[in-house]
Each structure stands twice: as structure tokens, then as C-alpha cells.
């Protein structure tokens, strides 16, 4: 350590070098603070642990020492040096790492930083289905206002209930009842969002209601879009082919149940995007029929059965109560002449089967309502199959690239009802944690345009994942620091080199690479 310290002392513009045991401890922090004040230092370098774990600690130290909270640099001489190299090599490398950090630190400039108040404490929930209802009730139960917007009649039991299989009816009815009388929830039926602007904590949504357009302020937004089954065409033509949702409805509305049923589970339907509950729908409905009409013959055809988790138990029960499962090979054909029948080849015996059926039940084909239009308005990217993209599945589930806008329901792909319920409450709690914080931190390592150099080529506007750059009144690109997430993609792409970002300018990177290569005095 002493030889590293000696090397650093010899570097340009280094005023003070101190060897400390634990700069991150309370004592260490106080010591740094005292030295900064004593010697009126303008910036500092910490040689120690990874910035990934200790950056925030030293930000606080800088801020409480009267410096801008970004005026320091960390040289990672622990995880990326002492832990992985032999002793003498590590010492030599540490010298270079500290020198590189010092040469970058020399070029740091105070980064913008402000606390923006969360001025609107309401959440906008778009959608009228299961997940919208759950999300709205979760938000309001924590004391925050909700504006519920849907094109249909909101809180219409029938519209929501018949949406999907496997909705826990009692729980759901109760939630609906609660929402109807909830003074915190404003319901806008037959309405749609036509514009959405602003920042997390202070969004402005323009909503077309039945009585005209209305400007609404909200702090967060939840897109609770529901995928609804497309009605099967077979019914109208008098053919006996329907989908699982229609079959489920038939089971609860009629008493003359069909005797022979063949259900077909598609191989990954439409590229695997909308087939998540196909298997469970088939098993659930088959079991319901078996309970109502024990003599019914039910065959489920599929290339495999994916009844995961606890649903495996249902799968076993279904087998035990006499439902036949046929693992098929190749195509499944439906023949209508002389009574409907299904032609299929059994995979294990390779014997072709011809199964007569009173009713053929296909999997639901789900479609997201209005997703693409809303994605455009809320500026959320969609993937190739038209689903909205979530940003951080692991760290911030249900969040989108637009901060303060959350997704649930089928917005980003097919879900089981149980998953939808979970996601709706997750989205709600994320929205609530935003609404409940008094301020949002803004700024830091953000990008900034030099209007003198900007040639208005629009490269940054096209490339930014967060739509942070815009053309300002002077006709130059400008980056909204409230939206900027500090990735620096625009900095790299700008052909005029008009964009720089705090804490990672071209000059800083250059100084760092120069010192990394030539440094260490060897």
C-alpha cells in the first residue's frame, strides 16, 4: 500500500495522499470530510472496493463535505486487482489503476443534481379487465387516488368475468364491489387516453371522455391491458368447433353437455407468445365437464403437456378421472364430413387415430386490445409480436423504459390468471412507492448537448431508448435531464461530438485509457 501511496503522491495535482483502513466506515467518512474541509480540496479519489458497491456511500461523503456529489472517482483495487492477481503484480496494477482514476478525476466537472417533488399523488390506470381492477384497488387501498380509464363500461362484472378462465370469482366480485363505492377511484368509462406528457411524479394525460376532452394530472401510470380471446369462427358456420373460453361459458350456461369432446392444444401457438395457459385451460375445462357429466369421453391432444408448478397435481387428477391424453406426432386434422372427427397420429405407437367428436375445442387465440396505439402515446417500445417491452424484469419488474409507467396484465405477453393478479399488485406497489416518495432524484451522470456544435441531425433523438432528447425552441437538440438515464448511447452516436455526459466525457475516457496504458511508471 505504501508504494502505491508513494506513486500517487508523485502524480500531478495530487494535494494529499492518506492510507486508511476503511474509508467507507463512519470514521473513515468523517476523516475524508475533515480533510476536504481542512485543505479545501475540490475532488477526491478512493482506492478500494468496487464503485458498484460503494459509489453511493462516497456520493454522500462528497455532498456532506460541500462538494458536488459526483466530484470523486473510485479506483477498484480490490475486486479487480488484489483479489485476482499475485501480490507483486497487484501492487503494480494498483498504481496504474489509481493513476488512471486520478487522471479522470482531474477532469470531472460538477454534475447537475436536483430533487424534483412528486407533485401529483394519483395513479392513472388504463384498462378495464382483471388486472386493471386489481391494480386500481391495490393503489387506492394504500391511500392514493386512482383514475381508471377504459374504452368499455368500467367495472361491468360480466365484461370482466367472462374475459378469462380461472378468475377467482368471489375475490373478484368483492374487489369490484369495493371499487364501485371507493371515493378515491375516479372511473372514466368509454374513455381513452389520447396524449401523455410529463415526468414521473408529474404527468399530464389528455383523456377523451364521453363529455369531451379532459386534462388530468397523475404521478404514475399503469397500463393494465388485457388480452382477450378472439371468438372462434366455427360457431357461426354451424361447425362444432369452439374455443376454450366459449366452452367454459357453455359449461356454466347449459345442461345438455356433449358426450364426446376432443380438445387440441396447439404446438407453440403463434410463435410461442400466446400459448401460456392453453394446457391449463384444457385440463381445467375437461375436469369441469367430467364433474358435470361423468360419462363424458374427453380426449386432449397435444405434442406435450405443460402443466407446471402445482398444476401438475391437476394434470394427474385429470388422468385419474379418465381423461385421455394423446401425445401427437405431426399435424392434427379436423374432418367435418360425416360428423366431425379428429385425425391424429399417436407419437409413441405411430398408429393413426380417428377420433369422432360431438364437439372440438381449440385453444384460445388471445389478442391485446389497443396495445399499439397506447404504446405510441406512452412512448413504450413494442417487440416484433406487438407486445409492450418491460425494461428491468429482475430488478424492477413491470417497469418500462419510461420511468413512472408500469405494465401489467397481458401487456408484455401471455400470463396465467394467477400471474396476472401478482403482476397487477406488483405494478401497483411500484407505482405507490413512486407516489409515496416526496422527491425524485434528477440529474447526475446525464448527457448534455452543446448547442454550438449540434448540427440537428436527429441521431440522438432516433437512438435514445428513453426519448430524452428533443429539439428545443432554438432548433437545437436538448436532453431532458429528468428523462435521461445516463446510458451515453447518444454520446457515442453523435457525429458532431456535440453531446457529452457528466462523469464519462470523451476527454475523461481518453485520460483514463492513456494512464491505464502508460501509467505506473514502469
Amino acid at each position, binding site marked *: 500500500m505504501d508504494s502505491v501511496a508513494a506513486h500517487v503522491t508523485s502524480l500531478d495535482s495530487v494535494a494529499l495522499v492518506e492510507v486508511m483502513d476503511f474509508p467507507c466506515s463512519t470514521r473513515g467518512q468523517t476523516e475524508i470530510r475533515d480533510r476536504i474541509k481542512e485543505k479545501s480540496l475540490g475532488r477526491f479519489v478512493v482506492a478500494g472496493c*468496487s*464503485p*458498484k*458497491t460503494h459509489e453511493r456511500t462516497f456520493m454522500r461523503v462528497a455532498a456532506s463535505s460541500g462538494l458536488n456529489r459526483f466530484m470523486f472517482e473510485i479506483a*477498484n483495487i*480490490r*475486486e*479487480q*486487482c488484489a*483479489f*485476482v*492477481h*499475485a501480490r507483486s*503484480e*497487484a501492487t*503494480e*496494477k494498483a498504481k*496504474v*489503476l489509481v493513476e*488512471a482514476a486520478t487522471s479522470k478525476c482531474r477532469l470531472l466537472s460538477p454534475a447537475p443534481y436536483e430533487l424534483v417533488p412528486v407533485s401529483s399523488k394519483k395513479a392513472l390506470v388504463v384498462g378495464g379487465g382483471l388486472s386493471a381492477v386489481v391494480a386500481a384497488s391495490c393503489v387506492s387501498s394504500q391511500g392514493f387516488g386512482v383514475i381508471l380509464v377504459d374504452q368499455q363500461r368500467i367495472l361491468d362484472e360480466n365484461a370482466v368475468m367472462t374475459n378469462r378462465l380461472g378468475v377467482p370469482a368471489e375475490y373478484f366480485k368483492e374487489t369490484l364491489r369495493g371499487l364501485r363505492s371507493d371515493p378515491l377511484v375516479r372511473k372514466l368509462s368509454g374513455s381513452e387516453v389520447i396524449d401523455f406528457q410529463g415526468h414521473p411524479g408529474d404527468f399530464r394525460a389528455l383523456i377523451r371522455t364521453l363529455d369531451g376532452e379532459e386534462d388530468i394530472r397523475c404521478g404514475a401510470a399503469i397500463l393494465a391491458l388485457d388480452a382477450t380471446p378472439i371468438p372462434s369462427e366455427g360457431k357461426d358456420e354451424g361447425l362444432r368447433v369452439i374455443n376454450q373460453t366459449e366452452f367454459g361459458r357453455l359449461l356454466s350456461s347449459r345442461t345438455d353437455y356433449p358426450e364426446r369432446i376432443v380438445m387440441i392444444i396447439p404446438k407453440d401457438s403463434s410463435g410461442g407468445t400466446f400459448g401460456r395457459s392453453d394446457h391449463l385451460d384444457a385440463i381445467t375445462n375437461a375436469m369441469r365437464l367430467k364433474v358435470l357429466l361423468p360419462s363424458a369421453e374427453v380426449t386432449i391432444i397435444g405434442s406435450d403437456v405443460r402443466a407446471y408448478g402445482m398444476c401438475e397435481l391437476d394434470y394427474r387428477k385429470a388422468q385419474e378421472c379418465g381423461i385421455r391424453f394423446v401425445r401427437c406426432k405431426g399435424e392434427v386434422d379436423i374432418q367435418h364430413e360425416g360428423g366431425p372427427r379428429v385425425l391424429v397420429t399417436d407419437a409413441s405407437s405411430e398408429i393413426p387415430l380417428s377420433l369422432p367428436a360431438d364437439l372440438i375445442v381449440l385453444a384460445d387465440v388471445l389478442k391485446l386490445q389497443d396495445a399499439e396505439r397506447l404504446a405510441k402515446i406512452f412512448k413504450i*417500445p413494442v417487440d416484433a409480436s406487438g407486445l409492450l*417491452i418491460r*425494461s*428491468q424484469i429482475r430488478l424492477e419488474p413491470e417497469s418500462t*423504459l419510461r420511468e413512472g409507467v408500469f405494465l401489467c396484465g397481458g401487456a408484455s405477453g401471455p400470463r396465467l390468471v394467477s400471474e396476472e393478479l401478482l403482476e397487477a399488485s406488483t405494478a401497483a406497489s411500484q407505482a405507490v412507492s413512486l407516489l409515496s416518495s416526496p422527491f425524485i432524484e434528477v440529474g447526475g*451522470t446525464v448527457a448534455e448537448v452543446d448547442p454550438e456544435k449540434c448540427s440537428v441531425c436527429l441521431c440522438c433523438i432516433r*437512438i435514445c*431508448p428513453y426519448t430524452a432528447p428533443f429539439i428545443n425552441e432554438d432548433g437545437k437538440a436538448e436532453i431532458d435531464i429528468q428523462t435521461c*438515464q*445516463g*446510458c*451515453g*448511447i447518444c*454520446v*457515442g*452516436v453523435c457525429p458532431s461530438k456535440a453531446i457529452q*455526459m457528466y462523469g*464519462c466525457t*470523451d476527454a475523461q*475516457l*481518453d485520460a*483514463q*485509457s*492513456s494512464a*491505464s*496504458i*502508460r501509467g*505506473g511508471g*514502469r
Partner: protein
Amino acid sequence: MTDRTRIVGYCCSYGGYSAADLAGVMRIRYSSDVMVIRVPCAGRIDVLHILKAFRHGADAVFVAGCLEKNCHYEYGNFEAKKRVEHARRILSSIGIETGRVEMFNVASNQGWRFPAIVREMVSRVEKLGPSPLRKVVE
């Protein structure tokens, strides 16, 4: 100017840099010739940063971003890939082997992969020898 091999690794904070940290926590040894420079996203890297590292005397340069389709900033790693390709074309036009520049995609939990990347780059430099630009730099 040192005659040691110098490899510069521009590592994105969420992929490459985190993997390097994890390699440290796992105590996997690797060559100390590699110098990591942390960037918020691989997409921050410009062709210039790669070229300038060679001008400073680097023997090889790599960029380590998040796994494809798993970039913390959505598609920064794809941008980086394009720029690395661009830098390779420029370098090859002045007679520098393209093998000295590479783009890697690493996840933060792939601690073992970072030392593997370093080994790969070190063995490439062993094969190719010091960068021809070093003489010019000196």
C-alpha cells in the same frame, strides 16, 4: 513506455464490469495486463475510444457489454457491436490485425467468463505480438 502487454477493456457497468467484480469475489486469477475502464453502457463507446487506446499504445482492446437482448439500456450493446466492427475496419485498413479488437457479451452473474475473456485476449496478443503502433507511440 512499459514493454508489458497492455489490454484495455471497456466494460459496461451492468454486464462486463459486474462480471469482473464477481470474478474478483470468486477469486479467479487472471492476467494483470488487462486494464478495465468502466462505462455506463457499452453503447457509450465510440470508435474513437478504441482507436485512441491503440494510439496510446494498447496491444488489444475489448468491449464487454450485457448479453444480447438483455442490455440494461435496451440496445446499447448492439450499438457497441456496430462501433467495434467499424473500428475493426478502420484498423485493418491501416494494417492492424482485427483480432486485436473484440466485442464480448457477458451477464453480471457470469463471473467465470471475465477471466476467460482476458485469457482469450492475452493469447491473441501472444500470437500477434505487440501492437505495431507501439513504435510510433514511443
